């Protein structure tokens, strides 16, 4: 049992609402999200359970402009630091990701930036947000298991789904309305991203790598580097002073190349790596890859089908409009788009980043 969070919360917060103690279910999959107690509805807000930490990634995966509340709870033991890979979490760890949109009008959801981070003190106001689903990754004895819960319309609780769902919504962006099909994945589809090695097919989290976590988070008690926070609360054993850091894709603090590679890392590399499901294409977008053909430069498609968009090279340097990568990011055709899962809208800002990167290249293919 840990006491640090309640202490901190009581020092800084009113301690008015008693926090829910999360429960680790070692075997069974509860039908309701509330049975886990990791995130809970209380007084018109989505709040985190006792000792549950929110976190963010320097560069996150795009999912149809959904906002994501990521949390981690490590009831026993400590995660082990890993330099280039996902941190090694102990059995009992529960990672949650709640997908929501700013919304006051039912199916119409707004494309907006996050206003303030969710903290132990300040939850997510339900009157201003529409909860869609909460996904859990649960570290059990045999390994990680994915679970997906869909929120009911009254936003009182979320129900377990194994077969997923299509949620029809409309995205409002400065008066422009775009209808879209938000897809809650079925359990089998979880492995589409969370088994980054398609030979072993071991499921694992993707985000909690040192390089993605190596950034600040504004907690209830102040802003601090997330890895330091995790060490402070005993969730992580250690981290060297020299830590890898992924760029923040949409801030000009890092070079364009670094921001671009961070974006590809998070959005593509779980499949596009040398042992991933998309190694069949020869396109490897993991940060370690430095081979130009494998990065797509002047590389012809192998089995892209309609995904080529009639273009010749994965990346045609200096010519984004002739680059297959950009076409596949822009199109909303499920048979041609990339990523294959997790989006039905175009990530306009991501497209612009890739566009700028390709525009700045000077190689000549022929």
């Amino acid at each position, binding site marked *: 049992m840990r006491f640090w969070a309640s202490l901190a919360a009581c020092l800084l917060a009113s301690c008015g609402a008693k926090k829910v103690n999360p429960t680790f279910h070692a075997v069974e999959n509860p039908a309701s999200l509330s049975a886990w107690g990791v995130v809970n509805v209380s007084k018109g807000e989505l709040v985190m359970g006792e000792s549950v930490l929110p976190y963010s990634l320097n560069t996150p995966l795009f999912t149809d402009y959904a906002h994501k509340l990521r949390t981690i709870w490590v009831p026993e033991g400590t995660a082990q630091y890993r330099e280039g890979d996902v941190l090694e979490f102990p059995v009992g760890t529960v990672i949650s990701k709640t997908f929501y949109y700013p919304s006051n009008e039912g199916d119409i959801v707004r494309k907006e930036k996050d206003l303030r981070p969710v903290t132990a003190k300040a939850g997510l106001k339900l009157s201003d947000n529409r909860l869609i689903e909460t996904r859990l990754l649960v570290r059990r004895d045999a390994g990680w298991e994915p679970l997906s819960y869909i929120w009911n319309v009254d936003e009182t609780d979320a129900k377990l789904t194994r077969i997923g769902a299509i949620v029809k919504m409309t995205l409002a962006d400065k008066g422009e309305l775009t209808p879209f099909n938000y897809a809650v994945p*079925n359990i089998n*589809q979880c492995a589409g991203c969370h088994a980054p090695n398609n030979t072993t097919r071991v499921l694992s989290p993707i985000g909690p790598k040192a390089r993605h976590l190596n950034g600040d988070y504004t907690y209830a008690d102040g802003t601090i580097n997330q890895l330091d926070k995790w060490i402070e609360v005993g969730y992580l054993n250690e981290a060297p002073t020299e830590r890898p850091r992924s760029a923040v894709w949409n801030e000009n603090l890092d070079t364009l190349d670094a921001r671009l590679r961070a974006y590809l890392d998070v959005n593509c590399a779980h499949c596009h790596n040398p042992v991933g*499901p998309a190694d*069949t294409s020869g396109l490897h977008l993991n940060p370690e890859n430095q081979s130009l053909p494998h990065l797509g430069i002047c590389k*012809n498609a192998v*089995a*892209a089908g*309609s995904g080529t968009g009639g273009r010749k090279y994965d990346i045609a340097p200096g010519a984004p409009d002739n680059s297959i990568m950009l076409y596949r990011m822009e199109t909303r055709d*499920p*048979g041609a788009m990339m990523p294959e899962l997790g989006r039905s809208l175009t990530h306009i800002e991501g497209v612009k980043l890739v566009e700028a990167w390709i525009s700045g290249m000077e190689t000549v293919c022929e």
Partner: protein
Amino acid sequence: MSLLKYSLAATTMLALAACSGKTVSETPADMSYQDTLLTQLIDAKPGNVITIPEGTFSFDRGLSLTVDGVTIRGAGMNKTILSFKNQVQGAEGLLVTASDFTIENLAVEDSVGDAIKVNEGDNIVFRNVRTEWTNGPDTKNGAYGLYPVQTTNVLIEGCVAIAAADAGIYVGQSKNVVVRNNRAEFNVAGIEIENTIGADVYNNVAVNNTGGILVFNMPNLTQYGADVRVYDNKVYENNTKNFGHKGTPVASIPAGSGIVINSHDKVEIFNNDIRDHRTANVIVSSIYTSNYGDKGMEDTFDPYPEQISLHGNSYTGGGDKPDGLELKALKTAMFGLKGKLPDVLWDGYINEELESAQICIQDDVEVLNADMPGKNKNPRVETEPFACKLEPLPAISLASAE
């Protein structure tokens, strides 16, 4: 508070769907089966046989299977039809990432992307499966019908593949494969074997595709192909206009190509009946002819076709109306308006470091060296360089094909 529409079915709905199982059939828009099948695929255990009854079942999302040892069985390729006409999610009709998988006696129609893809797995069987885009050849169709990739010990038999915008039957980056007794028609490529080590392709019918049977090798992939035997096939009139997506390798295939070998080594083509291909009954070429440049290729890739053997094939007609302006001009210049191109077309790319490419043609046919490296300046009919003989390639031994 919300008007959100969920297509999610609660357990009660599932139960209802299961009970009404015998009434599902008539309408193409019968969606009630989607949740049943999704649940069966998720709950599948090794050894399970998922039986799909007769009827047409509609899906708006892609299906996936991740468990080894599962069989999916319908009531027949014209009786059990999985229709993806309304698909809004998923890049395949069915995606399988598992071993010891069999799918048989059903059809997958109108998926937005590939119809059935198996990505990594051992011991894979497709039997009496039909994949079809029901609107006929169209660039907007999905790329592949039957699509095992990075698989080992694969049997594809008795299947029918129609109107894929890339290849009807496509075996990629695989090992030890038998493709037999299938029919591929109105695809860009009827049957394509790519970067595959050890494949026997026999007793198939490839008709009305853009190219009948293709043996291709592509750069930057996990393995390069070798030891492919193509024999006893009927390859007829593959003259359909190329409707492939520009930028895909098959988009460069001229309409009217019978059997095409591209940048591949160790291929034996024998005892096939090859007829009436308006460009050429057989094409042997390098990836350079498909407009590929060196810069996008790994250094380890060999772009030249070598150790190619043709023997015992019968050739009828063809070469009379080649696809593309260059080939048309070439034909007229060399053989006259009423003449025809020879049965075998070779682009002329050769590895200068080798003594011989060992493209050995025992058949009594002429070969046109199109002199692509010389920009078609010196095209010529040759026989002498092809007068060689190679040892037969080994037959595939595959337990599921015994």
